[in-house]
């Protein structure tokens, strides 16, 4: 992976909050276009802080964050958010326009696009998230949680960022909703070419969707690699107080029978079982 293939490069990043808390230490990583990454770690491990450094909301205390050739320290945030979008966990933190259409148009208007361009962007975004037209004039406050989340994502998509960071996409959702949102993100990744990064501690979801896992603990990166490889080493995950999904644990408990420690899904487990006889 050479430098000019990376969309995001983080070099020796340190971040300390104004009150003195050290949130990030010596972070080095690079992200290429088209990846699907899960950023995992215990609460307080620094994962939210890191992702906010990636889109310019936070400026590094020392070190550099370079996105698409732009250094986050010297680039106005308006430029950064066109490249890295951040969807907050609770859609209520960002919905304030009177109707969904204006809500989604808010981003493009902020970056001074013409009204025709804004219109194109909004229509595109609503189509991608599957927001039916009847909701365009509705006030976001009165929509269901699922719809509000879609409006929130659409409002980020309208900025057409290459990278989309989603904070806790499945927290508080039931199984069906979780899969819906994750399939949607997978679609964005595979059909539309976006780089997706999810911040989560939902390990089965990570196992099923993320191709790369970055595990953080105490402000440092503890592991960074393909999902199967990271999960095959539960002792690393333990350091950030996480454990692999149940199916992986089942496989790891049966290694002497021939199962792989990096098993991620039930399907993989079944295939291995078939192969045993």
């Amino acid at each position, binding site marked *: 992976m050479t430098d000019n293939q990376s969309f995001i490069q983080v070099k020796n990043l340190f971040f300390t909050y104004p009150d003195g808390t050290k949130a990030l230490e010596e972070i080095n990583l690079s992200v290429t276009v088209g990846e699907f990454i899960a950023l995992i770690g215990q609460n307080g491990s620094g994962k939210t802080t890191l992702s906010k450094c990636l889109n310019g909301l936070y400026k590094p205390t020392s070190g550099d964050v370079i996105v698409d050739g732009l250094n986050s320290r010297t680039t106005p945030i308006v430029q950064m958010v066109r490249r890295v979008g951040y969807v907050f966990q609770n859609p*209520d933190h*960002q919905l304030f326009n009177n109707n969904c259409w204006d809500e989604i148009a808010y981003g493009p208007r902020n970056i001074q696009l013409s009204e025709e361009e804004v219109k194109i962007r909004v229509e595109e975004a609503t189509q991608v998230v599957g927001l039916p037209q009847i909701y365009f004039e509705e006030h976001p406050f009165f929509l269901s949680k699922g719809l509000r989340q879609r409006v929130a994502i659409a*409002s980020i998509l309208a900025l057409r960022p290459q990278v989309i960071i989603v904070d806790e996409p499945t927290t508080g959702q039931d199984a069906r909703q979780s899969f819906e949102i994750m399939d949607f993100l997978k679609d964005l990744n595979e059909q539309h070419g976006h780089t997706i990064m999810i911040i989560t501690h939902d390990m089965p979801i990570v196992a099923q969707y993320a191709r790369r896992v970055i595990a953080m603990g105490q402000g440092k990166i503890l592991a960074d690699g393909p999902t199967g490889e990271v999960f095959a080493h539960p002792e690393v995950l333990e350091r950030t107080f996480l454990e692999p999904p149940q199916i992986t644990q089942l496989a790891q408990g049966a290694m002497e029978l021939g199962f792989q420690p990096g098993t991620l899904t039930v399907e993989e487990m079944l295939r291995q079982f078939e192969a045993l006889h």
Partner: protein
Amino acid sequence: MNKTLLGYVPTRSPIYAIHPFVKLFFMLIVSLFPMFVAAPEWNMALMLAILLLMWISRVDVRTLRIYVPVAISMGSIIVISYIIMGGNHPEFQLITRFLGIKIYWERIRDAVVVYFRILPMIFTMVFFLTTSRERDLIVAMRSVRVPFVVTYVFAMALRSAGMVIEDFQIVRQAEQARGFDTTGKSLGYRIRKYVMYMIPLFALSLRRAEEFTNALVARGYAFTGEASRVKRADYVLTHYSFKYYDAIFTALIGLTFIVLLILRYGFGYFSIERSWLLNWLKDVLT
């Protein structure tokens, strides 16, 4: 470090030994002193006394530095307003003329008196807020039998304020993440746009209000009826006992106030005429 309403106090500080009621009493009574004292030098002395108390309580006096610009601008505004709009009396002494405005001694004198009345009142407030934790306020109120509903609403207001501030920061970041940028824009624009923030904050508070009420009801809190008249044990008061020195301090504060009133109304102390500082200032300017 323990977080107080307006700053931090180190874990070891004499101020914790004082019953919260005494702190509240101090603030309420002492902030009345300047109302009866016109002579600025006395009010300045009061300010110094309070600074001394803050230092004894080991409050980090550096936190007061943020108030200096405020104090200076406030002082300037007061002087200027009085000069331009102060009272009028044919016996006022004219000092000089500046840009066509007549500057009278009496107006400057009044400005100085008012300024040094306000300052110690603010200081007393700040002293109280920097040495009291939220719990102290509640305890102070409960110990004088303020009705539970009042103290509880107060506590919830403090709690909500904290949550709203947290929400505000997240909302701000969420807007920035969508390209919201106020650099280089006019003040009017900024104000208009900041009003936007209210909407998510309201939405969040509304959603939380329902859960909050449910939590209260589920904890057996009854707003009306038989259950609401139950005698509350006020467990928190068991941590605070009113000691002999608390009684002494309370008496001292009250006594000082009475002495002040006697001196003021009985013997004419602290008046403008007998203020050597004002007299000196008058000599200098005229």
